[in-house]
């Protein structure tokens, strides 16, 4: 169980997460594309592009070019047993489709995984970096 609150300070974004479980030093996440907006009830194509264990605060570089022939929803998934992280950060290589600090929509939990997706369909033409807060 975790509680997340946020505040703004001189244009800085402060995020505070209170958790009853430790923050894991290594977090396993998946990322890729999905063709329809709801992977919970609607059959759809899910294109897994990457998976990795990485420390919180570190940056991963995801290459979304190969499977991104048409605009689709970008999704990410993390273990539901870990503290909720609602903020994902992207650099400007995505041409503004995902701005820095954009809040991803939490779709729900599937098989023990908490799934996030973008609010709209996007199309990347280059690699994109993400950082978990």
């Amino acid at each position, binding site marked *: 169980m975790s*509680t997340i*609150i*946020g*505040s*703004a*300070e*001189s244009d*800085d*974004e*402060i*995020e*505070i*997460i*209170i*958790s*009853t*479980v*430790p*923050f894991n030093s290594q977090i396993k996440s998946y990322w890729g594309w999905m063709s329809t907006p709801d992977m919970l009830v609607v059959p759809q194509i899910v294109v897994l592009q990457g998976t990795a264990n990485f*420390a*919180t*605060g570190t940056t991963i570089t995801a290459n979304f070019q190969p499977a991104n022939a048409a605009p689709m929803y970008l999704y990410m998934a993390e273990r539901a047993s870990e*503290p909720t992280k609602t*903020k994902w*950060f992207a650099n400007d290589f995505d041409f503004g489709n995902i701005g820095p*600090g954009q809040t991803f929509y939490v779709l729900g939990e599937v098989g023990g995984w908490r799934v996030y997706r973008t609010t709209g369909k996007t199309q990347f033409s280059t690699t994109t970096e993400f*950082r978990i*807060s």
Partner: protein
Amino acid sequence: MVTSFSGPQDGANIVAYRGDTFQRWIRITRNGVGMSFDDNTIRIQVRKGNSLILELFSAVHIFTDGDGVLKLLVSAEVMAALIPGTYDYDAQQQFTSPAIVKTLFRGTFSITDDITKIA
């Protein structure tokens, strides 16, 4: 050092169980980067009005855990001595040079009564 425009962020509510070891992990990030606690200490007090219910001190009950994470730890014996109820708390950050005090966040601190007491 920036100054908060709006004061501490409210809503960081905590529910604890009387007689259980109290553990919480708090991650504080600024623009996605973990806050440093190298040049400051954190104090937390739980109060009912002006009455002090519980005080958490840095290096005694509050420990840094890297990457902007604080670990709160209160023993079961101390928790067993608390009276169940809903209280208020906040977390205060103290810098020595320059001398700055800033309250980071606040909320309610609820203690649920236990059934099985410590022997």
